[in-house]
C-alpha cells in the first residue's frame, strides 16, 4: 500500500497549520526583563545625562550618570552642624537652634513616623517591627535614654550610634533638630502639656534638661 495515500496529505497540511498557529501562540510568552517594543527609542532614552541613566562614553565604556560629587560639595540644608573632631561625649554642648513649638513637634512626629518608627516603635519603647530582627532592640527613650541631652540625640541621629546607622545623609539639619524635639517629647522630659498658642515658645523644658544633667 502507498504511504502517501495512507496518511492523507490534506488532513496533514491542515493539522500542520493548526499546530503552527497554537505553537505560535504559546511561544508568545512573557519576557519580564524586556520593557516591550519601543518605536524610536531615542524619544524614551535620552542621550543627555539624566540622574538614573546609563550612558556610553566615546571610548565605549558604560557609565552611570549618578556620580560622586566633587569633594567638598555640601548639599543644601546639609551644612555640617557638628564641629569636626567632636565626639559623642562632647555633644552635650550642641544647642537646638529651632525653638520648640507645637508645630515643630508635629513636624517632628511626622518625620519620626517615616524615619524612626520601624525600629524605635510608636512610643519610642524600642519595640518597632524591625527591632525584633536586630541583634538587640534599641533602648527605650523613656527608659535608658531618658536623660540623653538634645545634643547627644542630635549627634546620634546624625552619626549613628551602636547598631543604628548614620541618618545625617538622608535628613537635613532642620529635620534632625525637629526630630530631636519630638524624641524629647517621647523621653517625657517635657512635663508641661503642649501649649496651644505658638506665642508661648517653650524654652523652659530645654533648660530643665540641662539642669537634670
Amino acid at each position, binding site marked *: 500500500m502507498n504511504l502517501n495515500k495512507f*496518511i492523507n496529505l*490534506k488532513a496533514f497540511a491542515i493539522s500542520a497549520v493548526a499546530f503552527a498557529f497554537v505553537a505560535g501562540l504559546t511561544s508568545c510568552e512573557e519576557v519580564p526583563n524586556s520593557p516591550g517594543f519601543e518605536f524610536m527609542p531615542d524619544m524614551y532614552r535620552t542621550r543627555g545625562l539624566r540622574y*538614573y541613566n546609563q550612558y556610553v562614553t566615546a571610548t565605549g565604556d558604560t557609565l552611570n550618570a549618578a556620580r560622586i560629587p566633587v569633594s567638598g560639595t555640601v548639599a543644601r540644608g546639609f551644612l555640617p552642624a557638628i564641629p569636626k573632631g567632636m565626639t559623642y561625649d562632647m555633644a552635650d554642648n550642641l544647642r537646638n537652634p529651632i525653638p520648640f513649638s507645637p508645630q515643630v513637634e508635629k513636624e517632628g512626629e511626622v518625620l519620626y513616623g517615616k524615619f524612626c518608627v520601624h525600629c524605635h516603635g510608636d512610643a519610642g519603647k524600642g519595640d518597632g517591627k524591625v527591632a525584633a530582627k536586630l541583634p*538587640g532592640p534599641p*533602648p527605650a527613650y523613656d527608659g535608658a535614654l531618658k536623660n540623653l541631652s538634645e545634643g547627644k540625640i542630635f549627634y546620634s541621629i546624625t552619626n549613628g550610634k551602636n*547598631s543604628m546607622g548614620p541618618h545625617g545623609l538622608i535628613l537635613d539639619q532642620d529635620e534632625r533638630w525637629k526630630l530631636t524635639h519630638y524624641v524629647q517629647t517621647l523621653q517625657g522630659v517635657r512635663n508641661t502639656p503642649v501649649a496651644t498658642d505658638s506665642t508661648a515658645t517653650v524654652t523652659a523644658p530645654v533648660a530643665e534638661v540641662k539642669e537634670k544633667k
Partner: protein
Amino acid sequence: MIKNISRLALNLLMGLVLTGFLFSGKALAADGKAIFKQNCAVCHAMTDQKLTGPGLKGVMDRVPKGPWLHDWIKNSDKLIKSGDAYANKILKENNNATMSVFEGVISDGDIDAIIEYLKKGDEPPVTTVTTTDSTTGEVATDAKGGIDPLYIILAIIVILAILISILRGVRNSISSVTEKASEEELAKPFWQETKEWMAGHRRFIGVCCIILLLIGMRGCWNSLWQVGVYYDEATDKGYKPEQPIKFSHKLHAGDNAIACQYCHNSVEKSRHAGIPTVNVCMNCHKAIQTGPKYGEKEIAKIYEAAGFDPKTGSYSRSKENPIQWIKVHNLPDHVYFNHSQHVVVGKQECTTCHGDVKSMTVAEQKQPLTMTWCIDCHRKTEVAMEGNAYYDKLHAYLKDKYKGEHMKTFTVDKMGGIECAKCHY
C-alpha cells in the same frame, strides 16, 4: 536616724535578694540574658561575629581573671585611663571606639547576671529542622506549578490530527479498493483540489478574506497602542525586570512596615523619588546579616557594593561597587514629571501611581503611565486646596473669581493641569 535605719534595712534587703539570685545560678543566667538583650545585644553578638563591638564567643577565656570584666562593663573608660594593659589592647583592636559607660545605668547585680549569662552562653536552638523542612516543601510545590492550558490544547490538536489523517487514510484506501474509478480523482494533488474548491465558493472566500483583513487591521491598531507602554491593562501585567539583588518590597515595606520615604527619601524634596544609596541599606543591614529566604547570599551583595567586611565590620573605599538597579517606571524623555509636586502639594499617595507595592515581591509597573492616563487623572482628581498652604493665595483668588457660580468640584485640569507646556517643555 529613722531614715538611716530604713536605708540600712533597704540595703540589707537588696543584699539578700542579690545573694538569693547568686545562689540560684540558672535563674541568674536567664535574668542576665534579658539584661544582655536589653543593654548589650545592640553592639555585641553571642557568636564570634563582630557588630559594633566584638563578638562575645569565648569571652570568658580571653579576658583577665578576677573582677576585670565587671570593672570593664561598669566603666570601661575609667579602666582604660587607669592604664590597664588589656583594656588598652581591646581599645586598639576596635579602632579606638569606646564602649558605653554602664555605671548608673545598670546595677552591680545586673552586671553579675550578665557575666553569669556570658559564662553559660545560649542554649542550642531547636527550631532549625522545621524551617528547612518548610522551605523544601515550598520548592516542591513551586516545581509542580500548573500546566499551561495552551499545551493541553496543543496536545489535543496533535492527537486529533493524527486520528483524522489515519481515519481518512483508511477510508480512502477502502474506497480505492472498492471503486477503482475514483482513483484518478484521489490522485489529484492537494493544492489543485483546494484551488478547485475555492473557485466553486468565490463569494464565501471573499467574505472570509474581508473579515480576516478587518481582524488583522484591528490587531495592528491595538498593538500600535502598546508601543512604548510597559503595562497591559487586559492582563494587568507590567514591566517587571529582574533586579541585581532579590530585594522584596513585600518584606521591607509590607511585613516590616518601613515607610516608603525611608528609602525613597527624596520623594518630598526632589523631582525623583530616589533609588536609595547603599548607606541607607547599611543602616539596618550592618546589623541584620541574614534574610528570611535567601540567607546571607543576597545581603552579601549589599556588602560587596558598600565595600563592607562583615567579619571585621569595616568599610573599604577601594572595594565599593555600585549596585546597578534597573529602573521600573520609565517616562519618555520629552515629558517632565515631578514627584515632590504630586506628593507634597498634590497630597497623592504612592499607591495611586505605583500600585500596592507593599504586596509585591518584585517591583512591577501597575499603571500604563501614558498621556491618556495622566490627563484622565488630572480631569478626575479634585485639588486638595483646603488647609493646603501652597494654595492659600490661589484659593482666595478663585473664591473671589467664581463667587456667583456654583462649583461643586475643582479638578486639576481647571487650573491648567492639561496645558501642553505643563509637562512638555
